[in-house]
């Protein structure tokens, strides 16, 4: 299995507090990898290091390397903007822009220089189809995106991320703010995304990880306790702490 992302000895500090301690892992290409663990264990932080969104946080210091296709993204030569184009992100709370549906999707392609109306139309349709949203919204593309339901908004955000053609998709608890039906739709969608994208999902929900992820990493107090195939993790955990967590005996 080919590795897309290689993390080596990653340490992250918020001021004096060390949020990530010596993380090392290889994330496979075109697979879904899930990060699980209790609140505050560092899984979201780790996800954000992959497209350097943590640059926005004041007093955030990082050591170690994160390589995508062999290139260290924390190298001073790295173009952060390009990195973020290649590693799309979906956030915990749906955050569509206060614009029309169409403009939301077309935002990414436009800022990356696509101006032709026809090309944009195609991208919008393709992205919405990949996010399984096209049929629901094709008649109201010019309406405000804020009028959609929560689940639709989140799929819109996925479509928006896909529109810039990333090769990695980072999802930070994408279904935690949604109802079960919308959650199911998004999980189905992720199953299809696996073919073209390397997907990394942070989730609170262990069943969700078990349902969709190929590999799963269990985080605790800023460290990776166990990182292995999802089946192995859930059926035959090596570490006692993992077992206690997935069986729900953990505070």
């Amino acid at each position, binding site marked *: 299995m080919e590795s897309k992302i290689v993390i080596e000895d990653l340490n992250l500090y918020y001021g004096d507090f060390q949020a990530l301690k010596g993380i090392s892992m290889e994330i496979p290409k075109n697979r879904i990898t899930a990060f699980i663990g209790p609140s505050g264990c560092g899984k979201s932080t780790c996800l954000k290091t992959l497209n350097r969104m943590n640059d926005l946080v004041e007093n955030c210091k990082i050591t170690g390397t994160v390589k*995508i296709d062999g*290139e260290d*993204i924390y*190298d001073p*030569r*790295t*173009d952060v*903007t*390009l*990195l973020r184009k*290649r590693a799309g992100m979906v956030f915990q709370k749906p955050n569509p822009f206060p614009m029309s549906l169409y403009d939301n999707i077309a935002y990414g392609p436009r800022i990356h220089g696509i101006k032709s109306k026809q090309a944009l139309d195609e991208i919008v349709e393709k992205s919405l189809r990949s996010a399984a949203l096209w049929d629901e919204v094709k008649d109201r593309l010019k309406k405000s995106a804020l009028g959609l339901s929560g689940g639709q908004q989140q799929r819109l955000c996925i479509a928006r991320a896909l529109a810039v053609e990333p090769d990695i998709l980072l999802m930070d608890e994408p279904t935690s703010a949604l109802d079960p039906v919308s959650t199911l739709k998004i999980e189905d969608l992720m199953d299809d995304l696996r073919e073209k994208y390397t997907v990394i999902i942070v989730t609170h929900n262990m069943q969700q990880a078990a349902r969709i992820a190929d590999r799963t990493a269990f985080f605790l107090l800023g460290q990776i306790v166990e990182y292995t195939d999802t089946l192995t993790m859930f059926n035959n955990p090596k570490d006692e702490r993992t077992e206690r967590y997935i069986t729900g005996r953990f505070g």
Partner: protein
Amino acid sequence: MLGNSLYGKRKRPADAALKFLINAAAALTVTVLAGILLYILVNGLPYVSWTFLSTAYSETDESLKGILPMLINTMYIVGITLLISAPIGISTAIYLTQYAKQGRFVKAIRFTTEVLSGIPSILFGLFGYTVFCILFRLQTSILAGCLTMSITVLPTIIRTTEEALLSVPDAYKEGAMALGAGKLRVVMGMVLPCALPGVLTAVILAMGRIVGESAALLFTSGLSYNMPRGFFRQIFASGRTLTLHLYQTAREASSPDAMHIAFATAAVLLILVFLLNRIAELFSRALRKG
């Protein structure tokens, strides 16, 4: 071509240009505004002395070039205006927030005060001149100026006080009501003390506005620079404030000496406004802390 590699920063000329514009605009703003402050202070402060602050003014007598009468007049106007407008404005805000039925009527009043707070002061001056000076026979006098200014600052006081009163959580009120306190006791003993920093901020903002006002006072309080003859008599006499003194000396000054007076007056005004601004800032910070 750099292709798909992450390495090598891409050049984005539009980005750089916009960034430059942002920095240039900020630099321009800061330079202009700091320039004004420095220009006035550097040229004015050397002439501000105790003698300047404590001497009377005369256009003919070279030894009398102080601003004491203007300082006194400014204090009169600030004091009397607040004496009139603060109780009325605060009462209005209390009535609107605590007593009046929250409906279309209160909304209409809010809309009116909001809209009227933008009326230029020259219109207040025009109104005050014909109504207070002529109709009420007050002539150009400090009292006429105060009455005019009271109306000018009322919308500001009402709005700011209202905001402060509305920011007091309803739970406090309900708690006090549940203990059987009368409405007046709740308002006076609970709501008003909680909102006090906000109310004081409103009053200080109004003070700043009065100190800086000139157009509304030009015709109502007049331009006389005589020393006050008596405490109550001065209220009915004409008298110029610091702003009007600056306006008048700047317009008429021909000699460098006269220019110094204008600069020094401007510097005093700036310092006064700065102090009021600081105090208001302190109060609003106290409000935010709760």
